[in-house]
């Protein structure tokens, strides 16, 4: 799957990682890694439940990637609808006012296309809006945990030297179904 450079929405200065493992006093610098799936604070358990596990983060990342992909598709669909709407409308107006002759077929196409587009366009907009909202919700929760999704579609710590928490690069096809748990 092609994933863009940075899927994180938040661009403000991020908050700090609130995991217990970020202890640089330890002599083992390897344990400096932000092993977040073992240390999500209970107060932030809305997303992960009380027992956050690596599997849960995998599932959340899967949802995020699915929503992200869907968001891009719906953004394109919405733009395509608006583009076609504007083209059809201007074509229609032109035919009504200035077409010289033999414009019936074009007129008929416009008459057919316009109502269809009029119906599809708001739906595309609404679907896009809700997809964005849900995607941003997941991104925000990752952000609160000090995580983000990087350009390769991996869940990493939101730091200058990110550590990979979950990697879904092996995913060939993004899932489109959003589990009910997301609405919690």
């Amino acid at each position, binding site marked *: 799957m*092609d994933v*863009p450079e*940075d899927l994180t929405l938040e*661009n*403000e*200065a*991020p908050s*700090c*990682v609130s995991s217990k493992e*970020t*202890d*640089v*006093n330890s002599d083992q*610098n390897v344990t*400096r890694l932000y092993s977040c799936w073992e240390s999500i604070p209970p107060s932030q358990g809305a997303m992960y439940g009380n027992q956050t596990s690596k599997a849960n983060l995998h599932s959340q990342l899967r949802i995020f990637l699915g929503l992200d992909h869907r968001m*891009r*598709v719906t*953004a*394109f669909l*919405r*733009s*395509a609808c*608006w*583009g*076609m709407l*504007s*083209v059809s*409308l*201007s*074509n229609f*107006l*032109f035919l009504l*006012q*200035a077409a010289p002759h033999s414009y019936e077929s074009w007129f008929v196409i416009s008459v057919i296309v316009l109502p269809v587009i009029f119906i599809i366009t708001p739906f595309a907009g609404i679907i896009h809006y809700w997809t964005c909202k849900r995607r941003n919700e997941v991104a925000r929760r990752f952000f609160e945990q000090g995580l983000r999704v990087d350009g390769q579609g991996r869940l990493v710590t939101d*730091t*200058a*030297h990110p550590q990979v928490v979950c990697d879904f690069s092996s995913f060939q096809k993004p899932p489109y179904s959003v589990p009910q748990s997301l609405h919690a």
Partner: protein
Amino acid sequence: MPGSLHVGLFAAACAMIAGFALLPMDSLAQMVAATVLLGLMWIGQSATHLRNDDFFRLLALFAGLVINLRYLAWRSEYTLVANDIISLAGVYLVFAAEIYSSILHFMGAMVNAAPMKRPLLSLADFPPGVRLPSVDVMIPSYNESPELLEITLRAARMMRYPDEKLRVHLLDDGGTAEKINSADPASRERALERRKVLQALCERLGVNYITRARNERAKAGNVNNGLEHTDGELIVILDADHVPTTDFLDHTVPWFVRHDDVFLVQTPHFMINPDPVERNLLQSFGRMPSENDMFYQTIQRGLDFWSASFFCGSAAVLRRRHIEEIGGLAGHSITEDAECALDLHRRGYRSIYVDRPMVAGLAPETFTGFIVQRMRWAQGMTQILLLKRPFMEPGLSWHQRIGYMSSILFWLFPFARLIFLLSPLAYLLFGLEVYNASMREILAFTLPHVIAIYMISGLLFGRTRWPLVSEIYEVLQCLFSLIAIINVLSNPRKPAFMVTPKGDMLDEGFISPLARPFYAIFFLMLLGFAAGVYRWWFYPLTRDLTVVVLLWNLFNFVSVFAALGVLLERRQQRASPRMPAKEKASVVLPDKTILPCTLINLSAGGVRVEIKDAKPNFAAGEMLWLDVYSEALSRKVKVPIEIRAVTALRGKIEVGARFVTEDSTHANAAVALSMGDSGRWLYFQERRWRKVSFFMALRTVLKQIWRPVFQHLFLALRTGADGFLEYFRRNRAAEVKVILD
């Protein structure tokens, strides 16, 4: 596919575009055609990140190109008329400015159609036993302080590279024999003192101090002198304020090892302080892409795709063999860097652009410094245009010619910008009809053209340049750069190199001495609005045109209004700028108690940490130890710090402290910790690269500009006319003279 078929297809496509561009249409048909094309652009630009996004991107660019061609065809065919000779001159001036903008626009679209993303190579990827070239790091200096130089020299010494192959040289032009034998005793004393201090510094740091007899050919001459005294295979050139990260050579040298024909590896100049526009007006250093992000993140990558990325004077590695082939750096212009790259591209050598920020520098703090820097660039590029003529330089490929011409022609923007600023006033104040079109034609031709330009800019530079920001920068520069360019046109060999003042501290806010011309334009525009209302009321037949011109004037007015906000220089007392950080660390108290903390910001001189659940009473002047893992050094470091300020917040305290760096090990650790980590620079940059819509940018800019402008006007009124002029004379007159000379 055979070459002739390619040529045939290309010719056929050109013929089709030309045919469509020249096809006569009435306003209604044009409106329909433009709507269709804009619809295509809209679809194309929203398809990024989908499959075949390159196709959609090119489709959008192509549709925009057709809209602009149709606009130009219409303008040239139907609108270049006037009732009198003065109006006709105005008509042609506006059209010339539009032609210039369109050429720049087309070349920009081509150059940036597919920016190159190079892989990040590392020396660690080579098998053991690969021979690495020797490297000479050259840091030319003229008048920079020893404190500033010490940071750069320390960082250069800490770059990861085999010790026996890395040598660092300070090329001091402030302590030359010429300066030491100066007729002026004060200058002589200063030069002597400087040489002594810098020699001691170099000895302490293990750096080679090099100076020369005479200050000839400025920075380029200084580097050439350095070349004569060294023999490394690769040359790293760093400005005095450009601090390299420890991995700089790790990611640049591999390109030279892999390819024998590479003469240059250029990296971005990452600025750790805001420029005057960001600091005085937008106050958005961490939230909005910086001005040079557009060039280093998009344009240089675009140029790299066409093998035309060029040397930017610093933060680059060059191969000595190739430099010596063209007789060193010095050329005919004061932008010897770009000229040198041009000469070597002409000989068939390659340049590489690595878009990872690995050198942190300072932007000019004052508007005066900013203008000095930009005038030098404008003059140098104009010199290259006149003296080297890249458009007909033999040896360059056609795409390299376009790349160079795109970069060079950009600097002629002051002509076009000034014409666009003053044209509405010519109509509103004097009734010169410089733009002959009805409202219907403007809606059909001009409006889609303007929309297409903004859409293409958004498509190409959306993440690194917000809409309207370019206009503010151009308005601020246009008056001064225009004078500078005219000077070059009258005598291409006249301009002399001027060092950009950097590292200034401003004890108090003040109005820039360069503000006066902007007052004149500001009041002319206000007058233009009054005249426009008068015209609208008393000339009913031209009301449509008057409304359009008033809107044009309003757009210009917003730019000039914002420019006034930049001209109020804000106080700047911090010696070294602090950059945000968020790394875990700990503070060790004198009684060995360890308190976990988080780094909030860092500079070469100090740090701010946040300590949660802190009970101890910290006092200013108290000594502590900062214990933190340094990514740059790949190990933990301990640096002594002295508390300067303590702020208690809800449940936590913030401690501001300075590094105590009397010991060389601690000084190195402080530099590595604060300036040695390219990952932190990249992280910071990526947080502020984001695309916003035109209307959001408009809202942001409009929201930000009011306060600085009113503060400016308030200060100007408070100072009063006499005091204001006196202030000019006392403080800044000499500076202005130097710039305008």
